[in-house]
């Protein structure tokens, strides 16, 4: 029986559940012996001119080896997003101006860990406050410039054409609305950390918490002005990333530079409070949605206008509206789609990828638009969706957003979700509660979504070597941080070679061992790196057959793999001589390296039904159930796949209900600790009902699409919609996320007032 599709428990777990994983801050690598501890002095003000920095008292503090300011650093300030305005560089340590709360202004190096914060408190910085720019619309006016040399606060504009005033001319019904896709924090449980040491050979070993060793190596090398071969990046275990650990952080470059400057290893690990302003944040788009169509439920035209917040220093967030625009039409076959986006800088933490990265914003927008349209024409929201989805016979389907959807059964996914949830029964219960005048009302939300996975780097490499003892090693350019690639990649190889999963080791995240690789992001890993492992296994079999042909005195065409014994045998000749992979490896190195290039992304899709209970007396929302259909093609390991869906659904619910990174008008973060940020615990979430559905992609031989972000993308609009749906009979059409008790309660009060 094939191992594919079975619930293999993780090979990662025995260590993780006994001595624990080894994260960057856990390293006891002897090269780091005697390391200095880096503490960063960070700006408490969002926008200010620095008038003086006095480090003299800090230099005298116990254990202090050095205190440095930007003046001491002889590296050009990096542009963190290559396409951004060249004036929008981020200083290593600010010297003239600070642009967000949390921006580093001085670096303190101490012998002991506890001495750093003590000394950092003695650094005296004088600031002359400047007006803070927090609101994106205010930023777009350029009244206050963050980078006077840039002459503008706009970091990017996508689609400069003026909107066509007749775009909705032939629509019977047109609805428009301003909505907010709020800023959220990735909040990986491991914060950022890096350690660096330079060897006698002039190379730097940089240990860091990241989603792509090779990318981090190239960035850090570029910043330091050295050849990439001089930087050896090693990723220890990584405690979650969710997109926020894509790309090197400037702090990594600083750690490497400080290690070179002092001639000693340097360690850095940030506190949670630093992380909540220092690590990139996600989402943050103000959107205007306009949807038009006819009263029979057919949508004809859709427009999405986006103003996105890049934060103070442009990073990946500048690019993400490209994904939002591409995925704007969602699962729907809409005649006319129009979108534009502007990205501006503000005095806040930089934005970048967060689980879904640009696509959840697109889905939330179109799904809200569908709900508004359905409400306007008085049609069931599930029905409106089914009328408008791309029908199966139209695939591959090129959308008005410019994407080529590979495969999909969108209406079927909606039907499965409706059926699993007993949608009609839920509507009946909702009605009964309203009629009884219950204080606790039921809300039902339906989402239909499609997303793009493996949208960045389509190619990935894999190597496999079989050893004489029958074990095997796989090297991959992907970079798991919880996803379970050690198990999944071993299953893919085991399926072809017959070598048991327990005898296969997977190596990743070390640029000396795997010099090339695209890392793990954008749900790319299985369909790129996983398929590469499959391809490498087949190539290894070809190589083994060529070598076995001589030994077995048979032609290559007559040979096949006996997976029960991990051996090459002659087809249809039981009892004849065989040779195992291990025996072949004994004679000569048995190793292949290959690259799989799918050349295209894939488009997983699905549908969620969420049921919430809204307490009309308090505004409190409770998610009762969520049924999720998430179709990412065939499932390699249901245990891992379900885990990805669970985590994604939870993060999606959290955005809909609880989480928001908030800045006050002065740019002060009000959610800078876990005590203030709405990170959900087990008590706020239900168990999740997962409904299976598997539609393969033609893009790769195994039919795999990505599953990492699907849950997040589907659940947010379903839950938000459910909250609003509970109150629809009061005339409420929209409540911005997060739908906190206060917002819900206010919406109810306003509706009741208008009514009375």
């Amino acid at each position: 029986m094939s191992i594919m599709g079975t619930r293999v428990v993780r090979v990662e777990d025995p260590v993780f559940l006994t001595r624990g994983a080894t994260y960057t801050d856990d390293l006891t690598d002897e090269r780091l012996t005697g390391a200095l501890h880096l503490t960063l002095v960070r700006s408490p003000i969002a926008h200010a001119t620095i008038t003086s920095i006095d480090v003299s008292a800090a230099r005298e503090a116990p254990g202090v080896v050095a205190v440095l300011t930007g003046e001491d650093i002889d590296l050009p300030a990096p542009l963190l997003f290559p396409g951004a305005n060249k004036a929008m560089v981020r200083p290593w340590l600010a010297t003239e101006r600070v642009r967000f709360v949390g921006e580093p202004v001085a670096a303190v190096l101490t012998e002991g860990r506890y001495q750093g914060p003590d000394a950092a408190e003695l650094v005296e910085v004088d600031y002359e406050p400047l007006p803070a720019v927090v609101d994106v619309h205010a930023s777009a006016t350029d009244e206050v410039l963050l980078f006077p040399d840039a002459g503008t606060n706009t970091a990017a504009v996508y689609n400069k054409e003026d909107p066509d005033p007749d775009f909705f001319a032939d629509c019977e019904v047109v609805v428009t609305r301003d909505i907010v896709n709020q800023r959220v924090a990735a909040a990986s449980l491991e914060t950022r950390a890096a350690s660096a040491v330079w060897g006698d050979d002039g190379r730097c070993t940089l240990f860091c918490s990241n989603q792509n060793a090779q990318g981090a190596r190239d960035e850090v090398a570029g910043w330091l002005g050295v050849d990439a071969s001089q930087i050896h990046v090693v990723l220890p275990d990584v405690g979650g990333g969710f997109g926020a650990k894509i790309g090197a952080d400037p702090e990594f470059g600083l750690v490497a530079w400080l290690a070179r400057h002092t001639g000693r290893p340097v360690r850095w690990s940030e506190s949670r409070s630093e992380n909540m302003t220092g690590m990139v944040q996600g989402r943050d788009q103000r959107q205007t949605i306009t949807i038009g169509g006819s009263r029979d439920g057919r949508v004809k035209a859709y427009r999405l206008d986006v103003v996105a917040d890049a934060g103070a220093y442009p990073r990946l967030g500048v690019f993400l509206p490209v994904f939002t625009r591409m995925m704007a039409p969602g699962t729907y076959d809409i005649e006319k789609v129009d979108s534009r986006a502007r990205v501006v800088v503000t005095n806040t933490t930089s934005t970048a990828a967060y689980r879904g990265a640009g696509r959840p914003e697109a889905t939330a927008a179109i799904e809200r638009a569908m709900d508004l349209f359905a409400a306007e024409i008085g049609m069931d929201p599930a029905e409106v969706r089914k009328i408008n989805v791309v029908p199966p016979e139209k695939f591959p389907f090129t959308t008005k957003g410019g994407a080529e959807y590979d495969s999909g059964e969108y209406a079927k996914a909606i039907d499965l979700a409706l059926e699993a949830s007993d949608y009609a029964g839920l509507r009946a219960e909702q009605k009964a509660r309203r009629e009884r005048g219950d204080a606790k009302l039921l809300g039902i939300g339906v989402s239909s979504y499609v997303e793009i996975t493996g949208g960045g780097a389509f190619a990935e490499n894999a190597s496999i070597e079989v050893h004489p003892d029958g074990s095997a090693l796989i090297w991959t350019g992907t970079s798991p941080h919880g996803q379970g690639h050690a198990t999944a990649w071993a299953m893919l190889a085991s399926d072809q070679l017959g070598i048991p999963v327990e005898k296969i080791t997977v190596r990743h995240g070390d640029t000396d061992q795997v010099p090339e690789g695209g890392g793990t992001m954008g749900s790319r890993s299985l369909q790129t790196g996983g398929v590469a492992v499959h391809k490498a296994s087949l190539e290894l079999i070809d190589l083994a057959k060529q070598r076995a042909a001589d030994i077995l005195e048979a032609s290559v065409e007559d040979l096949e793999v006996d997976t029960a014994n991990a051996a090459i045998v002659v087809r249809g000749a039981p009892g004849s001589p065989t040779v195992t992979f291990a025996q072949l490896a004994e004679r000569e190195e048995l190793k292949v390296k290959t690259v799989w290039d799918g050349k295209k992304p894939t488009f997983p899709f699905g549908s969620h039904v969420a049921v919430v209970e809204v307490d009309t007396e308090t505004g409190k929302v409770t998610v009762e159930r969520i049924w999720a259909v998430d179709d990412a093609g065939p499932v390699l390991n249901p245990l891992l796949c379900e885990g990805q869906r669970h985590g994604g659904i939870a993060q999606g619910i959290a955005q809909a209900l609880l989480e928001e990174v908030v800045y006050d008008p002065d740019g002060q973060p009000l959610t800078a600790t876990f005590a203030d940020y709405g990170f959900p615990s087990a008590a706020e979430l239900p168990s999740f009902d997962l409904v299976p559905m598997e539609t393969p992609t033609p893009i790769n031989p195994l039919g795999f699409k990505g599953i990492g972000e699907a849950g997040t993308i589907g659940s947010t609009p379903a839950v938000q919609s459910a909250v609003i749906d509970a109150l629809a009979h009061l005339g409420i059409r929209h409540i911005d996320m997060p739908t906190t008790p206060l917002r819900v309660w206010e919406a109810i009060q306003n509706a009741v007032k208008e009514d009375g």
Partner: protein
Amino acid sequence: MTGVKVEITVNGRSTTDEVEPRLLLAHYLRENVGLKATNIGCDTTSCGACTVLLDGESVKSCTVLAVQADQLAVTTMEGLAGESGDSLDHPVTAAFRQEHGLQCGFCTPGMVMAVAGLIAENPDLDERAVREGLEGNLCRCTGYHNIVRAALVAAGKDPDAAQAAEAESDAARTAPGFSAGSSEGAGA
């Protein structure tokens, strides 16, 4: 620096050191004893990544000073792994593996100890009791679904039946809006 001598039994072994009075138990375990499973995920007693058992009760070791643990016994996740240090025979760690109750693993050592503490307190758990009992332990990866299952399995319950019962129950949920900042389960 003037140190204070502490003697703390960690996973059955006696440890001793001169420590700064402000040294956190979490740092004592990680740096002085060298047991790195216990993690630190926040600075506001919110995440529970640092949860250990102190004389059998779960506490957040980032909120306990090493000097407060003087003469007491601490159990960390390493302490569940037997003499060999690699045994998965403990019902809680075994259940976490079987139910895929961990992904990146960062919350895991604290979560495992919180579950061990919860079961020690009351083994007769249902889904709601597990969810409320783990309110002080945050996980970003799993959505808690499989952690809850692992806890139920470790307590000898049938997770499928327990989840089905919870899904059917129409009982109003009593959990507050969100739990961040809760210091429930913390010592000191």
